[in-house]
């Protein structure tokens, strides 16, 4: 069967209790392994530092998975004005927002934990705000279509009715106000989560390099490079898993698909557990 004829096999919204419990247990096992390896001296910094680093990574990943569900994505139909949202895939858009935030946070990392997280969140939110604005400009002035949601009768924030503006035979079009706000919130969460992962890894690497004898003026640069590439890698993994959860398009927080987010958070917790553990093992003392 070819790709263009196939339909997404994902079952809408169904929560998988058994698999979710196993995933959470797996994540706890990964945290336990980090604690044990710290206790045995394979990770530097004692037992608590590696454990808290991994917990921070998992919290960051859960924030990313939650944030991705806010981002309005329309895919190819949106490019033709037949569905609301930005005309690209979930993974691409979430990655754009998250990496914009990550770079903002990375720049601010030396100014302290709180400033870095705020910088990351604002960077991600700003990127989404600019994207949403330019998308609406091209929809309204380029394609000549008004923004209308196909999922709700009235915009949950402004209360404006949508049906009169919706073209027949479409799922809606443009980027309604609620989707715009959702996109910015998604960017904030994505940037915050990505920066949290980055800062956790950066602090861990800086401490570990000193312990294994990689010292010098430019050793922190190496920590930045490593933490950066791992944060990007993990961000992509979490964004793609969340995209699998959404399967295709989502309008924003008012879309029925938004209710699937607990599944993605469970998936992100388990996935970031193993990814974070592997990323930390890179600086293990061998």
């Amino acid at each position: 069967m070819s790709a263009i004829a196939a339909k997404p096999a994902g079952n809408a919204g169904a929560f998988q209790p058994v698999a979710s419990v196993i995933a959470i247990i797996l994540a706890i096992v990964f945290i336990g392994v980090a604690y044990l390896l710290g206790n045995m001296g394979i990770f530097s910094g004692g037992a608590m530092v590696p454990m808290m680093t991994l917990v921070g990574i998992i919290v960051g990943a859960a924030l990313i998975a939650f944030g991705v569900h806010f981002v309005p994505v329309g895919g190819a139909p949106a490019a033709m004005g037949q569905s609301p949202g930005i005309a690209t895939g979930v993974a691409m858009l979430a990655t754009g927002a998250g990496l914009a935030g990550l770079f903002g946070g990375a720049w601010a990392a030396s100014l302290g934990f709180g400033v870095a997280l705020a910088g990351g969140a604002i960077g991600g939110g700003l990127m989404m705000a600019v994207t949403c604005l330019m998308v609406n400009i091209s929809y309204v002035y380029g394609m000549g279509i008004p923004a209308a949601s196909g999922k709700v009768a009235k915009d949950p924030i402004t209360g404006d009715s949508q049906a009169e503006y919706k073209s027949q035979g479409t799922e809606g079009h443009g980027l309604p106000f609620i989707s715009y706000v959702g996109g910015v919130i998604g960017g904030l969460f994505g940037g915050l989560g990505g920066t949290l992962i980055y800062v956790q890894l950066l602090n861990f690497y800086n401490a570990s390099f000193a312990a294994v004898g990689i010292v010098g003026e430019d050793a922190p640069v190496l920590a930045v490079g490593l933490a950066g590439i791992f944060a990007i890698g993990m961000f992509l993994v979490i964004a793609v898993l969340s995209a699998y959860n959404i399967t295709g398009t989502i309008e924003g927080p008012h879309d029925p698909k938004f209710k699937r987010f607990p599944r993605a958070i469970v998936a992100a917790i388990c996935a970031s557990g193993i990814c974070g553990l592997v990323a930390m093992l890179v600086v293990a003392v061998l």
Partner: protein
Amino acid sequence: MSVKVEASHDGIPHNKVMAMGLILALVSLYIAVAGAYAGYDYLAFFGGIAAVGALIWGNSTIKKLCSYGIGTGVPSAGMLAFGSGVLAMLFAAKLAVINVFLVPIAGLIIALIVGLVLGWISNSVLNMKIPVMTRSIAELAAVGCVALMGLTVVATGHVAFSEITAFNLDIFGITVSFYDVSYIGAGLIAVSFMLGAIALQHPFNACLGPGEKQDRTNMLAIECGFLSMIVMAVISFAFVSLVAAWISLVIALIGWFVSYKKYFALSKRDAAAWLDAKPFSDAEE
């Protein structure tokens, strides 16, 4: 009325493509690693061959996975592959402390473990219910790891963590390490990450649909692999000896040119066949 879509029949079954790609990648990687172990970096270009082998394998896997319609588009699979592959690749590089010949096989195994967990999550927790999902994502993680390792070898001539994180310079017999101008410290790994991820997701994304032919898609994968290798060969001028960098560049250019010509010929062949076809074959019903 439903539009009839012809399934793409593969001349070579997936398992055979996988075995060929894997063997080509591992053998090439080991030749390159052996060269680095012996102190010569002239064999660094074998890393590019390894990347091409891995991409042929990964391309076949993506084709198998995406024929189920995962709802997110083909590119996401390439990003997932390299996102998990980079973790495994760097952890495996760390194991060069024990033995440098451990690195390629260890990377493969670690990537398969990470990929199995991620595949299980997408299939069971996210309820995708695609029979080949777990296996495919495990394979993709391994492909990402091996392809990234191959591109790294082309650029730096080494796979060991101590070599790709530091630029070692002998000054009056004393080895001085500069971390900020290394492959990772300077962020060059991000270049190979994106080059590899795009080379992995592009071929099937570009060729999918009715009339997709296995040999044409594979040829595009080879072409993308050599195209990525050209950039890595240019980067390698900063890390390996001049002769080795030129060897990599010339081989990459020749490989790209030959595969591009072949891909162009295959596209012409299939385009002529497509013009005669009737896509809406059940329109008269």
